[in-house]
């Protein structure tokens, strides 16, 4: 997002784009409480649906997809091969908290493949999970593919995991709806899409 923001600023030299980063659930609550934002981009559609229900946003567009992967510290100390390893009690297993989309989706997938994970901690957001994995204080966790490059972790594919759509929308209370629309347009443009692809996101 930072790259996209920088690009937008290049096109509109007298503007500054301020990014508020957080877990989708946090952002959703902030928007519902009336946070002064113009555009909101979330990591899952359920949170965006809540905003749409509350009529807090305009038309929703899908800008990218993501998928879940297993993440392990470099060197894979826990010798993790697949989702089934998450049930091993001797491993230190981390998941996002169920309120976060990444946590919700991960649990759904594990239930689908019949794995009951022996969870040791539920991270409040993906960043915390990645930090622990990078420090090898956890043996395995489930994150988005796009998160892999944020930390020194290695990804292992999760066959059968769902594609996670990432929505974006302009807020109804945006102070300058035209500018907000312009930003969304940039993100949806081929240029924006290229940037997203670079960062590990799949096409919408």
């Amino acid at each position, binding site marked *: 997002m930072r790259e996209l923001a920088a690009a937008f600023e290049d096109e509109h030299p007298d503007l500054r784009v301020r990014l508020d980063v957080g877990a989708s*659930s*946090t952002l959703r*609550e902030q928007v*519902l409480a009336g946070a002064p934002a113009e555009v909101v981009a979330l990591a899952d559609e359920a949170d965006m649906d809540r905003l749409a229900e509350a009529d807090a946003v305009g038309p929703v567009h899908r800008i990218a997809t993501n998928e879940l992967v297993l993440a392990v510290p470099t060197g894979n100390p826990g010798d993790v091969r697949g989702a089934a390893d998450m049930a091993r009690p001797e491993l230190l297993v981390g998941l996002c*908290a169920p309120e976060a989309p990444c946590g919700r989706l991960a649990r759904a997938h594990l239930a689908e493949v019949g794995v009951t994970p022996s969870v040791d901690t539920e991270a409040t957001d993906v960043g915390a999970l990645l930090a622990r994995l990078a*420090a*090898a204080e956890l043996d395995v966790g489930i994150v988005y593919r796009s998160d892999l490059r944020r930390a020194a972790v290695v990804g292992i594919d999760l066959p059968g995991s769902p594609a996670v759509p990432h929505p974006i929308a302009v807020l109804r209370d945006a102070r300058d709806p035209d500018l907000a629309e312009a930003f969304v347009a940039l993100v949806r443009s081929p240029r924006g899409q290229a940037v997203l692809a670079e960062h590990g996101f799949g096409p919408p």
Partner: protein
Amino acid sequence: MSRPSRARAGSHAPLPLWALAVVGVCFLALPLVALLQRAPWRGLGDHLREPVVTEALRLSLVTATGATVLCLLVGVPLAWVLARSSLPGLPLLRALVTLPMVLPPVVGGAALLYALGRRGLVGGPLHDATGLLLPYSAWGVVVANAFVALPFVVLSVEAGLRTVGTDHEEAAATLGADGWLVLRRVTLPAVVPSVATGAVLAWARALGEFGASVTFAGNLEGRTRTMPLAIYLELQSGRETAIVLSLVLVAVSLLVLVPLRDRWLPG
């Protein structure tokens, strides 16, 4: 012996002083009032019975008490060293003691992880040798809470030791008492109020700790999800339980702190 009556100077204080004091009270009371106003009074009973509430409360009370015990065990001797010994580098030690108060709790928690985690400086060898693991357990919460609460005990007891002075300790020495006896029967009884104050402050601090605890010990219901953490998560989901949890935390704190008020305000 009756307590001496004190002429209340308050009635003669200038008006601006009163006004500012009122602002202070509002500052503290307003958030509390807002909480009370939002509370789901009708479903309160059901909310209170939810496992997330009872588990978090139990865990918070147990870990706060455990952290306080740990702080006293380590902090009182440390305070003694600061107040009574003549080691070189005491100012440095005193600064070190204040460090947890200055560090953002999350930083403290991360540092603890790097020190005592499974791959930590000390935690690593310890884990390899004994299989002991502090993070992801209630003990980890105790350690993280003790880390942030320790300064309260040390500073309070050190101040107390300085105030009581060494006069009686000298008298005890001339009567033949060795170090332990002096400590046991003269020094410690004299600083009981300071120790109590330190313990109460540490307990309150440990009860409210969030950043260091979640960063070090993690987050799992029943094991490491303390009240502050539970409140944070419930808030994220926009659930009413968050407010219930907050009120419970406030109620418990007041229940403990109000009866002990007299210790802080002697006379």
